[in-house]
């Protein structure tokens, strides 16, 4: 089975019966950014590359899994654990959730270009670090347009584009589909029709996140042919 089939089909487990050393991967330190978290905490996140703020926030979540070292300091110099970070994101009261990130991460890791639904690309990014200082991490999430009203069970969240090195944010074109995140029970036909109206003719895909499993579905209208 291909590795991506494994990724999709099964929960991954390290084999505890084999003696293998875990490879540590470190972020190359080339710069720092500072965010405030709940205004009372200060975090210094060390990262590599020249990512724009929205992508940094998303890749921040990727790095939580892929990289074994992510140095985060509190105002008192205390290093935050992954548990501290996870609980802050999972609290949901600040307007974000792991569901969004899991869906985002799955698609971004495969090279898909992921944009916020109904938000122009030109307002998504800002490379001006002065504007980011003092912003809370939740402000960054909100800037991505993925602030999360937990009462909204079915929501169009991402415009999706196929991986393309020629992609231009100034001229993104039509997305290949719009991703709708579904919470709670599966949608009825009427709910899907309403979402389709909101997507303005762009094909819809539904996403449901349950624990580790991120599932995507299409619910396309068809007409079976009248056979001879």
């Amino acid at each position, binding site marked *: 089975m291909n590795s991506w089939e494994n990724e*999709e089909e099964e929960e991954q487990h390290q084999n505890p019966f084999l003696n293998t050393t875990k490879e540590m991967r470190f972020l190359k330190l080339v710069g720092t950014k500072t965010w405030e978290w709940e205004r009372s905490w200060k975090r210094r996140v060390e990262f590599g590359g020249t990512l724009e703020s929205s992508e940094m926030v998303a890749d921040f979540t990727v790095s939580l899994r892929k990289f074994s070292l992510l140095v985060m300091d509190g105002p008192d110099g205390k290093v935050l654990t992954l548990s501290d970070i996870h609980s802050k994101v999972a609290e949901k009261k600040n307007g974000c959730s792991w569901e969004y990130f899991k869906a985002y991460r799955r698609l971004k890791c495969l*090279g898909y270009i992921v944009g916020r639904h109904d938000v122009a690309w030109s307002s998504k990014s800002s490379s001006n670090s002065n504007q980011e200082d003092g912003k809370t991490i939740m402000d960054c999430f909100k800037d991505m347009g993925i602030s999360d009203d937990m009462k909204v069970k079915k929501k169009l969240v991402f415009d999706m584009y196929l991986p393309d090195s020629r992609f231009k944010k100034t001229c993104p074109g039509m997305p290949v589909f719009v991703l709708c995140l579904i919470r709670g029970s*599966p949608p009825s*036909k009427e709910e899907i029709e309403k979402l389709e109206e909101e997507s303005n003719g762009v094909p819809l895909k539904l996403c449901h996140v349950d624990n580790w499993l991120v599932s995507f*579905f299409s619910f*396309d209208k068809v*007409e*079976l042919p009248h056979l001879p």
Partner: protein
Amino acid sequence: MEPRWKGKGFADIANDNPMSEIIKRLQISFIQSKEPAQLSGCESLFEAGLDLADLLGRTCFGQPITTSSKDKQWFQFGPEETFYLSYILKCLKILGEDGQDINFENLWDHMKLKRENFPFLFKAYSHLRSKNWIVRPGLQYGVDYVAYRHHPALVHSEYSVLVVTKNHPRLKVWSDWQSVVRVTGGVAKNLLVLSIDANHHDMNPSLQYLDKCTIDERLITRWVPEHSRAENNRQK
């Protein structure tokens, strides 16, 4: 998903034998035979001569029952088949359990009593059959029906069919979606959901009411972004 023909040349055989024509011959043969079917519960039993038996086999109606008779073949028709042959194709007379002729309305009421959700299952069955798809029971795949574009000996079925109404919602939890879509995909079919636009207050619709209801066809498929990316790379 392209049709999967079971043998070389089978697509041509299907092309040369359009189902609509075979069904017309079936209707004529039924009318000529003048034999009625006997209602038994929600099914019916029918004794066919050899020519009619051959046509029933070609159009995939009923389940043949083996007996010692060499010039007759018994068939058992399911509730939807019984009603379709009688009411839609208008070629089969039905005798009630009392041995007397039974009209459409009484047969309808009888079937509604005997089979849960019969009106909507029949509407979906009739919808597909009227487009000349072969429709067979789908319980073994966790669905209501499976649909073939021609005889099952020639081609694999393309669709697993679920019938949905407001009164009879299905796929109410995510494990339902996952299990039905996975099983369907595992047997190389597409999941077709037929939503019948019936007033949700009417749990006991009449034939005339049901005739006016519309059917919405939707395909539920699982989308695997990894597959889609691999396909996209291959196309480049």
